[in-house]
């Protein structure tokens, strides 16, 4: 009996109580649910694969995962990006076992079957007569995803032929906000190197939910490091206590903004030449918001998160903004591999690029001072839910009950904006999106 048969859509939907704001703790530890998530979510949604700037030349490839299925992202000789299941159609051996590389075509190491960069079958090692005409080589190219699309240099793919184009998921409303991070200069962002990869002892959704807008954990879990590396303790606290909305930017896509009070100098941590480019690229409302943005964290369902903030690790240096992009790569119900990239404006000076990378490494990364605090909290969640009693209980997102009708009406941006970062609304919206995909609504 498969997980699909053991857990019906109705069963799955019952685990998230949207009225009461409670969620079954099974979502963090149950292996059957995990198996079902791989099928119902990761084979059906748009899944982030990587960045166009990771494979600039034809023949460049990187290896990634869609859920638990390994894939190759490659640029072909026409400059087009392809995403293929990373296993030979002959006997299933992984075609690319390295993290990244450059090839003229793909050759399976086992029996020598080969493939063009566009995934089509190129040849077999042995002469044709050896196969006696029985092997339909034309049909045995690398297994392709159903659709590929990009936004702001980010490559997404899906196995789902029926799914609408990416603009229906990362909508115009989403892009209004995401452009503040990814599309704020004419040339956009570039990746600063291959992703860091490390293993966390937690369910893949925990980090994603946190990055939707877990405002309340910042002044507690990060009470030591937070004020120390911000512009100042006063500004950190002002941003924490000030106008810091939770925003549902589209279905399943959520963001928390820490905004500086209006009297503070805008654009903390950006060099003037970049600010000039922001003003040429974004509209007046976006510029006003970006200027006041102290921290921006967001998660695009199912497992892509971004975080941007100005930080400084020396009193003698000005704060610098970093931008981290990461996926919470599912491994099992209680193990996740975090893949972490750093991005910076293509137009930025070499000095600023280096400073932005260091700022990111020191805050949100495997060695990040913020991640260290989060990681132990999340590992402790897995430990706390090991037993049958733990699984039978609920997680509380009941703060939403008191906030769900409160909307920041005149907030200068699209989406649904809750008035502060303590509402838990965006985190719970992520779980409601999980319910839509797992419960059969999507």
């Amino acid at each position, binding site marked *: 009996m498969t997980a699909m048969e053991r857990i019906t859509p109705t069963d799955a939907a019952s685990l998230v109580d949207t009225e009461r704001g409670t969620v079954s703790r099974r979502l963090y530890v149950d292996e059957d649910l995990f198996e079902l998530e791989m099928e119902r979510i990761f084979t059906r949604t748009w899944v982030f694969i990587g960045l166009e700037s990771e494979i600039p030349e034809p023949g460049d490839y990187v290896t990634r995962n869609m859920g638990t299925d390994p894939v190759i992202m490659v640029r072909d000789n026409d400059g087009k990006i392809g995403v293929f299941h990373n296993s030979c159609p002959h006997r299933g051996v992984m075609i690319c*076992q390295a993290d990244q590389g450059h090839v003229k075509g793909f050759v399976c190491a086992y029996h020598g079957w080969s493939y063009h960069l566009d995934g089509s079958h190129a040849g077999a090692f042995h002469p044709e007569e050896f196969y006696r005409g029985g092997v339909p080589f034309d049909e045995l190219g690398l297994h392709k995803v159903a659709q590929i699309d990009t936004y702001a240099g980010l490559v997404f793919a899906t196995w789902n032929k029926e799914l609408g184009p990416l603009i229906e998921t990362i909508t115009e409303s989403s892009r209004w906000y995401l452009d503040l991070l990814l599309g704020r200069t004419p040339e956009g962002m570039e990746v600063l190197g291959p992703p860091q990869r*490390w293993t*966390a002892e937690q369910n893949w959704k925990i980090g994603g939910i946190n990055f939707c807008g877990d405002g309340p954990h910042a002044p507690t879990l990060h009470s*030591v490091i937070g004020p120390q590396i911000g512009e100042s303790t006063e500004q950190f606290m002002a941003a924490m206590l000030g106008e810091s909305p939770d925003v549902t930017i589209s279905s399943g896509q959520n963001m928390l903004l820490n905004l500086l009070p209006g009297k503070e100098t805008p654009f903390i941590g950006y060099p003037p030449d970049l600010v000039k480019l922001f003003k040429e690229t974004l509209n007046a409302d976006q510029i006003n918001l970006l200027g006041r943005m102290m921290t921006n964290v967001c998660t695009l369902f199912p497992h892509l998160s971004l975080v941007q903030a100005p930080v400084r690790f020396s009193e003698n240096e000005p704060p610098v903004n970093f931008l981290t992009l990461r996926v919470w790569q599912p491994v099992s119900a209680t193990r996740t591999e975090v893949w972490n990239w750093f991005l910076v404006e293509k137009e930025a000076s070499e000095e600023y690029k280096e400073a932005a990378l260091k700022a990111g490494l020191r805050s949100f990364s495997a060695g990040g001072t913020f991640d260290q605090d989060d990681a132990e909290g999340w590992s402790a969640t897995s430990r706390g839910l090991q037993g049958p009693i733990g699984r039978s209980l609920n997680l509380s997102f009941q703060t939403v009950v008191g906030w769900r009708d409160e909307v920041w009406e005149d907030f200068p941006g699209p989406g649904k904006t809750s008035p502060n970062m303590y509402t838990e609304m965006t985190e719970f919206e992520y779980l409601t999106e999980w319910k839509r995909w797992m419960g059969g609504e999507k």
Partner: protein
Amino acid sequence: MSVRPETALKAGGQPVSDAAYRQISELLFHEASLLSRHEYSTWLTLLAPDISYRMPLQTFQHRNQRRDYGKDPAWLDENYDSLKIRAEQLNNAASNSEAIPSFMRYFVTNILIEESENGFSVSSQVLLIRVRSNNPTPFFLSAQRSDLWIDSGNQLLLSDRAIHLDMPHIDSPTLAFFM
């Protein structure tokens, strides 16, 4: 970067005196002892004010398909001020990462030393065993370190350290320690 140095030192370099070899070896053992006991305030006194402390990031690559991208990708890229902030965070009970201190043991071996202009180039191999409260299974991390220790007049100070890990994908949720 992805090409790992076999050793920081050239074969056939001028050997240092027995006394210097012993002094620097014991300095590395002393440092390992401080790190295993979380004595980070004292560890900071071993660092030069202009220290560069880097942990480069490596990737698995096929011999015939090698391609690097990004400028000097890293796990860590620190200076004195950022190391001091990290040390203070790790020592602060209000900070979650090491509120329950991990048990750590450092094994330092294969020490090669060469005299340089104002100090010593030192290559060593390190095995770290770490046990965190949230996971009783020991975590192993091995690395080669390439150091520059400079003579400040009254003591040797660590001025440059590159830590080449043997683990392109780290099987641990944090790097809340020094190597």
